């Protein structure tokens, strides 16, 4: 893998071919906000909070830093009025789901996002997919997955698998930026095995 040089926020940054812009930036100590990114997981590009402006051969466009590969002579800007406006709008959209998520609240403070801009939605899940992808890519278990699509999309545990595998693992729990994952798991337990709904199962 060859070394390449690109520019991020005016700074010369050295990176290895195959790296993403996000990885190169973080290596150089430049922070870019993310919600759906996880070092151990393949780039997903779902939350779009990591949008940055990439300029290549005179062409500027917004790209997701978590998925965009570094290129020689790429010029990246991680902050601009437009980028901030888009991040603020993305955060406001997510705060309609999870207004009390500590992670979202902190980012909202940084970008001046108003948690009450949009009417509250019934579901806490922000569809970052960390639980689903962690379970699939790292644990190879697929005990939790997405069901339905679009605005009706939600995460759901597969009851048979969850009851067998999840109690001994629960590695996805701390990944969830809201409290929806835990709630979904408790619901699965309750529905799959009424006896376990008292919590006896999770205490084992």
């Amino acid at each position: 893998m060859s070394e390449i040089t690109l520019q991020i926020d005016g700074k010369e940054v050295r990176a290895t071919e195959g790296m993403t812009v996000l990885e190169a930036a973080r290596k150089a100590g430049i922070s870019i906000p993310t919600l759906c990114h996880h070092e151990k997981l393949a780039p997903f590009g779902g939350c779009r909070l990591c949008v940055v402006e990439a300029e290549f051969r005179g062409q500027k466009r917004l790209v997701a830093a978590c998925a965009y590969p570094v290129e020689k002579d790429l010029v990246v800007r991680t902050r601009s009025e437009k980028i901030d406006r888009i991040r603020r709008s993305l955060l406001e959209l997510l705060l309609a789901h999870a207004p009390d998520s500590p992670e979202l609240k902190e980012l909202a403070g940084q970008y001046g996002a108003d948690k009450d801009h949009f009417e509250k939605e019934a579901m806490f899940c922000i569809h970052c997919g960390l639980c689903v992808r962690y379970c699939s890519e790292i644990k190879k278990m697929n005990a939790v997955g997405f069901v339905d699509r679009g605005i009706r999309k939600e995460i759901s545990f597969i009851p048979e698998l969850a009851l067998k595998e999840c109690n001994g693992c629960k590695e996805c729990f701390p990944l969830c930026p809201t409290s929806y994952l835990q709630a979904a798991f408790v619901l699965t337990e309750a529905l799959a095995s009424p006896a376990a709904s008292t919590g006896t199962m999770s205490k084992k």
Partner: protein
Amino acid sequence: MARLNSPEELEKVRQDISSRRDPKKPCISICAGTGCIACGTSEVISAFKREIGKQGLKDQVDLRSTGCHGFCERGPIVVIDPEEICYLQVTPGDVSEIISQTLKEKKIIDRLLYVDQVTGAKTVKESDIPFYKNQKRIIFGPNRKIDPQNIEDYLAIGGYRALAKALFQMTPEQVIGEVKTSKLRGRGGAGFPTGVKWEAARKAKGEPKYVVVNCDEGDPGAYMDRSVMEGNPHSVIEGLIIGAYAIGAHEGFVYVRQEYPLAVNNLGIAIQQDEEHGLLGKNILGSGFDFDVKVHRGAGAFVCGEETALLMSLEGKAGEPKPRPPYPAVKGLWDKPTNINNVETWANVPLIINQGADAFASIGTEGSKGTKIFSLVGKISNTGLVEVPMGIPLRDVVYKIGGGIPGGKKFKAMQTGGPSGGCIPEQLLDLKVGFDELTQAGSMMGSGGMIVMDEDTCMVDVARYFIDFLTEESCGKCVPCREGLRQMHKILTRITRGKGKEGDIETLQVLAETAAEASLCALGKTAPNPFLSTLRYFRDEYEAHIKEKRCPALSCKELISYYIDPAKCRACMICLKKCPAKAIDGGKKKIHIIDQEKCTNCGNCFEVCPSRFGAVKKISGEPVPPPIPEPERTITRESKDT
């Protein structure tokens, strides 16, 4: 027919077919496209078969069920060659007369001909009908001459000649060069130069390579890909094999919607015939080139028309787009170099190879070459599929081909490019059809939907409708599309219900920018177009809804009221009887009044009030006048005379 082992054998078979066919022998071509099937063409075909048998004409006349002719408004369509006599809206009852009069006596049946709505002039030949005359049907035209289930028909019009030429007279690089020179751009929506895409896939490292046909046409109201696939599947397959040869692929997939049963059926038959003839499979035409095609039926998600989502779906996964780069040309199906093109793009390829890139590029504008098939629907007299040269003004499509707006209504806007296209207003009707021209106007070519709207259409409601469709079809992977559209839909719905507020337009603009700039795929990036283009050209309608609670088109149900003008009401009691809410009070000789509390705004009274009275009014943004005093409601003889 035996396997064809060389281009010479192909030409020999072609000559055999031609020598067996007498151009003077009458041939009845009946459109059996999906539109005409819906109009009852199957019964017409059965009637022809029966009648021909009954009259003992089996050897004297050919009967051909073809793909879509395009003039769907007037189906079922029957064309009798060699004279090219075109009969429209034919019913089984007309059949025996057509046989005895036209076929035997060579007499034209006047009532089945096309009649010009304005001049009343009748047209005999199909190609003389204004709807067809102003088109340039190089891709779609052959549909008329082909029974899609009979490979001989395709061979008779020169089918697979381009394939033989590419395989035996051209190197893969030359094929790519030819496609690049033709400046063909993808017909699926994005308009990316096809030759450049092919070259990238050819140069990409990795084996095997794949080619894919995108027939996941999901736009509401659009059916051009469907009709090409149903009516002329061999043209798509021929293009695909040529592309595979150019790129170096030996396996291809056709991704076709499960909802297109006729397309799936005809495609399957075509593939089987090609395999039997040595036009698919090992050692095609003895060239040493191997290529196989499989059909994959899509489960009907709009987003699967997006190429990365389509490939995910082909792999058996949920149809969700992936970040690009890497582009499919480098890392596509099962991470191998993959070239994916739309049905119509593939169907253009044999034409380019046969006629040469320069002939092809002589049609169109600087940036857009060749023709484009559009599905012309909405408030237009001649609904159907039209193929026009790039560069034709939209006005010609609407008036010369489409025959204008029915019912004496005024043209208001034309929505092009499918749900995520934009609305083009009347002042831009002279705009030329082309990828860049439409994009600059805030719309897009898309895959070729053209929806015409008249003065009764509310543009805010149009934006709401398309955003609703896109919200339903969003895959839900990325936030700007899933959540942004959810909120845009809520706000637009609120505005059309008279609950819009100051700042709504600005919030919509920010959401539109977020979706357009930050979405993962083209569906999300283009999704705000219906809002942005209607705001650009019809901002006053948004403001009227928000500030005055008025719908200028008198269309948004919750912003209009019905009112009976007492000076015009003749107390005929028609509206009173038709009102499902029993909201109309009145009687014989007693002027009717609508009880606004009971009225559900269904509009029945407005529809049924005799036009000579025109007493029922639709109003918006103004208070309903108070009912006239009881004593003045009785109609006396004198008042009737005035």
